[in-house]
């Protein structure tokens, strides 16, 4: 294939055009991993859709009840786990009561991982939060959107007991909670079906409860129409949304430091594309002249 180019000596540009892909790989590996060691935070503007999520939580009075549904699995951890931690930080900081559940089997386990992480914070440790009083994990129930629908009538239809097997009636936090009427805000972390779409259709549309969400980057744009109609307060889209939320919360954490890797990796790709085109054009110019 390269017979013609092999005969004459390769110029700098030609070498650049046929650069070994492994050099690109190396650049990407370095671009991704090196920033992980420097916990640098990038300053970035908080986009309105993210700010709306922040406002929705910020507006709640202390003691309000927030339902957090974990609808993802370890596959989406890099994108959604930082959001989960930020949600918890925000809720606990504002003394909100948190009810955790999951429509995906692995979801509630992800919640526990996030809780462990959040409890390491000094200010949250100082609050000495109690399971059953300040937060509760209801666990996973199969049934997808049917679960959402049933909870609209009574949480007990879907969750007779929490993930530890304690009946809801014996959990202080759950005593005043019958259905969505007693919930001030639903937060949803979603990586697909069932997820935000179902929460909008079965909880918001039917029972008129307030909803805000965190989504994977691929999924987030399809949620914009719901924000426009007011069915969804706001959405965090992918790692970037998570990072902006951390900035809004003034508590930069994982997503912000990950975003540094993202920015550099994107920069490397863009640079390569631009250099490739410069090489391409300077070669073409030489050929025509």
């Amino acid at each position, binding site marked *: 294939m390269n017979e013609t180019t092999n005969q004459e000596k390769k110029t700098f540009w030609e070498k650049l055009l046929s*650069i070994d*892909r492994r050099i*690109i*790989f190396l*650049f*990407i*590996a370095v671009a*991704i991993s090196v920033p992980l060691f420097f916990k640098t935070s*990038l*300053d*970035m*503007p908080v*986009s309105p859709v993210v700010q709306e999520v922040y406002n929705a939580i910020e507006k709640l009075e202390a003691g309000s009840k927030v339902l957090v549904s974990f609808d993802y699995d*370890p*596959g989406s951890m890099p994108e959604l786990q930082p959001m989960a931690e930020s949600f918890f930080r925000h809720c606990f900081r504002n003394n909100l009561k948190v009810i955790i559940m999951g429509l995906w089997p692995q979801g509630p386990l992800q919640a526990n991982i996030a809780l462990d992480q959040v409890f390491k914070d000094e200010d949250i440790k100082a609050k000495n939060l109690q399971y059953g009083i300040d937060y509760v994990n209801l666990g996973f129930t199969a049934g997808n959107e049917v679960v959402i629908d049933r909870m609209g009538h009574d949480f007990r239809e879907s969750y007779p007991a929490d993930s530890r097997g304690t009946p809801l009636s014996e959990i202080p936090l759950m005593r005043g909670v019958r259905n969505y009427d007693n919930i001030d805000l639903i937060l949803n972390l979603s990586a697909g079906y069932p997820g935000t779409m179902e929460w909008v259709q079965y909880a918001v549309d039917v029972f008129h409860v307030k909803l805000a969400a965190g989504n994977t980057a691929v999924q987030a*744009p399809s949620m*914009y129409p719901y924000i426009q109609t007011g069915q969804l307060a706001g959405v965090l889209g992918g790692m*970037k949304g998570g990072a902006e939320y951390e900035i809004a919360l003034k508590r930069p954490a994982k997503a912000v430091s990950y*975003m540094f890797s*993202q*920015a550099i*990796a*994107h*920069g*490397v*790709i*863009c640079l*390569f*594309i631009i250099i*490739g*085109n410069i090489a*391409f*054009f300077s070669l073409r110019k030489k050929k025509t002249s």
Partner: protein
Amino acid sequence: MRWQIPLLIVLLCGVVVAVQYFVPLEELEFIYENALDWIIITGVFAMMLGLWSLFRVSISKVQNKAPGWGYNLITLAGLFGMLFLGYRVESLAEGSLFMKLFRYVYIPIQATMFSLLAFYVASAAYRAFRARTVVSTILLATALIIMLRMIPLGFLSNWNQVLANWILTVPNMAAKRAIAMGVGLGMIATALKIVLGIERAYMGRD
């Protein structure tokens, strides 16, 4: 007989299921829901064919001492190891050796294979995104605009964000719709050809 009966089955199943979509009667719903279960059951039987195929190809390589036959042995070991450990339903519970193998061997490899895409996205972009023609310039320019969103460039970022959002919500949506409609027409035409028995390459010949 060899042809008429399968074609009759195709026609019958296709028409009943399509009609069921428009007729909410419970009796048809019953047939439909059961048909879906039958497909799943048939699929499980077919899995044995799959495993048999994998086994036969691997074992014949081992027998013939084909190059790299040792790796086929590892595949077979992994396969039978999992089949053996999963002999009872409790194996699927967290903490069993079966699930541990899944978690500590399968999940890391799977995640790593997936993450290779980060490298390949870069090399593919470098090679393919050249402004050779109008069409490839449009491709390149849009990709750059969208990727630049992730890089903090001060005030430029804000401008770019607005443009990127427009691209994602307007022209992107338009072309996606056109593709979706075309694909839809292709799909329903294929479905009709199957049900009418015109499309039958999938059944082979004698």
